[in-house]
């Protein structure tokens, strides 16, 4: 969903350093790097969530809904109360106003928004996301946290599978193409790269049309057959069957462009002198590829891949809606339809978390593969 511009290939500067065999300090460096990144990321998430809260409550909109809800509840509470109805009008108004102000105070609505917004952020950070207005969790609870936690595994299964398949297939294709630079297949992938401007859900519609509607060999959507198989093996099989189309459509949408970009990275690095040197030494092409081309390219590839994953995450609401996948994104879509404010805000916050975790995991992987982090400094020691 997010903007996916052409990624400009890096200027080949980081020359792999001969790693010193000081695994202990390498580990500590990686840990220290990751630790620092974790702290920075935490503050980033706090700011991100604060912004989310601000946008959600811009112009006091959410407060207005809350106030109206309290008023409605108080009115409804007195509707069946005969003795209350018999009181004079002024007395009734006074009692209702009092009850409303007590409830508003309880929710903190009487404090200025700036004060309350920090409370909201702390609530959001501790996943205390409040109660849904219309949606229920499968267990019948109204807690937004439960609604979200129930749907989270489905989303994680779908996107983890898709991300892994995308990563490895794109790397495999990119390596293959860099070996056969200029071949027909290479030209085909270059020709297909513009296709990646269309998002995954868009190809999903076509794939559903072909494989579900016309051929009838794969399901239209959903995560497992209904009723779900009780046997674990059959369950996994059914899940796999339902995963095929979503994963395939994400792959169709993204493999070509990424394979094309990464192949360009590989080509840039494989024209380096040290690669020629390695070839001249008579190393097998497999070794050359793995040690001298793949390794220095990996950090760049990881950066490009992290942008891709973030794009995939943000597209989750629509992607899951098209495939009827019972995950977090579809919960967002349902919440839009039901106008369920707390769930919309809650899912947004969880997506912010998921993005931050993704960024952290990729940075950890980056620290593992980037020699500059391992040896410390900008490769000054060698």
């Amino acid at each position: 969903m997010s903007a996916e511009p052409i990624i400009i290939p890096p200027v080949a500067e980081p020359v792999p350093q001969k790693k010193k065999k000081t695994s202990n300090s390498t580990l500590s460096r990686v840990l220290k790097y990751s630790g620092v990144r974790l702290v920075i990321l935490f503050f980033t998430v706090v700011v991100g969530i604060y912004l989310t809260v601000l946008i959600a409550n811009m112009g006091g909109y959410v407060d207005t809904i809350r106030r109206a809800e309290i008023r409605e509840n108080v009115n409804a509470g007195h509707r069946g109360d005969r003795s209350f109805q018999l009181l004079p009008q002024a007395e009734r108004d006074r009692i209702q106003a009092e009850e409303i102000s007590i409830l508003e105070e309880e929710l903190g609505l009487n404090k200025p928004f700036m004060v309350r917004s920090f409370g909201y952020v702390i609530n959001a950070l501790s996943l205390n996301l409040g109660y849904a207005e219309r949606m229920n969790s499968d267990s019948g609870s109204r807690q937004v946290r439960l609604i979200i936690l129930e749907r989270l595994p489905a989303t994680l299964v779908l996107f983890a599978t898709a991300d892994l398949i995308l990563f490895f297939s794109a790397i495999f294709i990119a390596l293959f193409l860099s070996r056969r630079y200029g071949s027909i297949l290479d030209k085909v992938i270059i020709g297909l790269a513009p296709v990646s401007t269309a998002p995954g859900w868009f190809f999903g519609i076509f794939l559903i049309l072909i494989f579900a509607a016309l051929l009838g060999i794969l399901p239209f959507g959903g995560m497992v057959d209904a009723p779900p198989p009780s046997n674990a093996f059959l369950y996994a099989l059914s899940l796999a069957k339902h995963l095929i189309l979503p994963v395939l459509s994400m792959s169709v949408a993204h493999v070509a462009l990424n394979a094309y970009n990464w192949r360009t990275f590989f080509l840039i690095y494989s024209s380096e002198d040290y690669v020629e040197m390695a070839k001249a030494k008579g190393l097998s092409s497999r070794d050359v590829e793995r040690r001298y081309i793949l390794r220095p390219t990996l950090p760049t590839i990881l950066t490009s891949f992290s942008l891709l994953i973030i794009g995939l995450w943000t597209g989750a609401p629509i992607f899951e809606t098209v495939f009827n996948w019972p995950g977090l994104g579809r919960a967002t879509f349902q919440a839009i339809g039901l106008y369920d404010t707390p769930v919309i805000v809650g899912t947004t916050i969880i997506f912010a978390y998921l993005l931050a975790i993704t960024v952290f995991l990729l940075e950890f992987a980056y620290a593992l593969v980037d020699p500059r982090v391992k040896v410390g400094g900008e490769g000054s020691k060698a």
Partner: protein
Amino acid sequence: MKLRNTLREFTRYPTALAGVVIILLLIGVSIYTMIALPYKEAVLLWRGGVGVWDENPKLVPPAWINYFNKIRVPETIVLNSADGTATKTVISSSGDIGETDILFTFDYPYEGFPQDVLIYFTATYAIKQPHAALTWITPDGREILAGSFSVAPTQTFYASQDERLQRKLNTDLPQEGLFLDPNAPVDAPVAVEGTYKLLVQVFTFESDASVDAKMVIVGKVYGLAGTDHQRRDLMIALLWGTPLALAFGLLAALGTTFTTMVISALGAWFGGWVDGIIQRITEVNMVLPFLSILIMVGTFYSRSLWLMLGVTILLSIFGGTIKTYRAIFLQVKESPYIEAARAYGASNGRIIVQYLVPRIVPLLIPALVTLIPTYVFLEASLAVLGLGDPVMPTWGKIINDAQQNGALYQGLYYWILEPAILLMITGLAFSMVGFAMDRIFNPRLRSL
């Protein structure tokens, strides 16, 4: 001279040329649409309501589908005694009692059946209702008494819902029974082709009473694009979707790219805390779920396309590209000619606008063109989520309607395919041009 070289190089990419042709066609369609069907009119038509689309068939594919099908199905046929497309003869007899004969004659060269047969009556009288008798005459000469009833000032006869006709023809679908070839096998019913006649005899019981009738054979195909669940002509949204998609894509891409460029130039030039803040904002922006925030804005505030456009630009400014541009600006910043500019005392603004920014234009323009389809698809995504602009007919809203009404399950493929193919063509055209431009403008980076 340089421009001519660029153009010549451009012709070496057939895909890019195809892209340019498609883009020009799309612009042509947009201009035609804006002139032929003014925006306000399109919005009103798309909103529909009573009387706007009543005569249209519901959920039928475009008319050209007949070229591919074995069994041809009819288009809508409208005949009206008021505008002379049906013959109306007034036979005055003695006193107040009169007879008006309205004869509808039409050719029916199709094997398939229509969706419905409607007859709209408009009658003027004081007290005594006129009485109508319908005689249906098939091409093979059979006469069917299709109905006989009193006529109110405005009255409509629906063949599909007429129980007496249902019993008479002994079928659940009387509108098909009227056309059915009695010799056709039961499992493969076909309609009799030829000239049908419908004679409407109206007996009036007042001297100045008059009656007009309009017959509509509701077809099973419609126009160039077909109709949706509200009987609307999809062509309206397909046509108007073009300028809206182009405008949204172009404005969003322009807004994002240029702001990003200026901000990254500022960061790279001033460095220090300015750069720091920009970097931090970029990192925060990375964990903000883009689509979810757009969803919140759409749900809580307004679904107007232009508000969405603004929020999209705001959220995309600090995207991944800002880092790429910054890296390039940092390199350029150290070049000797910038030092020279500093030495002669050029102001910061002058250096940024005149010396830094132009260096990135060759990268910027291809990126901009490639970004356009991303935003075209974003608009469609929002519409599919039900957050499309409430009044504007766009491609995404057709897909949304189709999804909501289970078009794929019901086999109404045209409904989804038409907007989807238009989206695909638009997206491909821009990205093919963008990719080619990238290779032409940045031969050093893309020679591989």
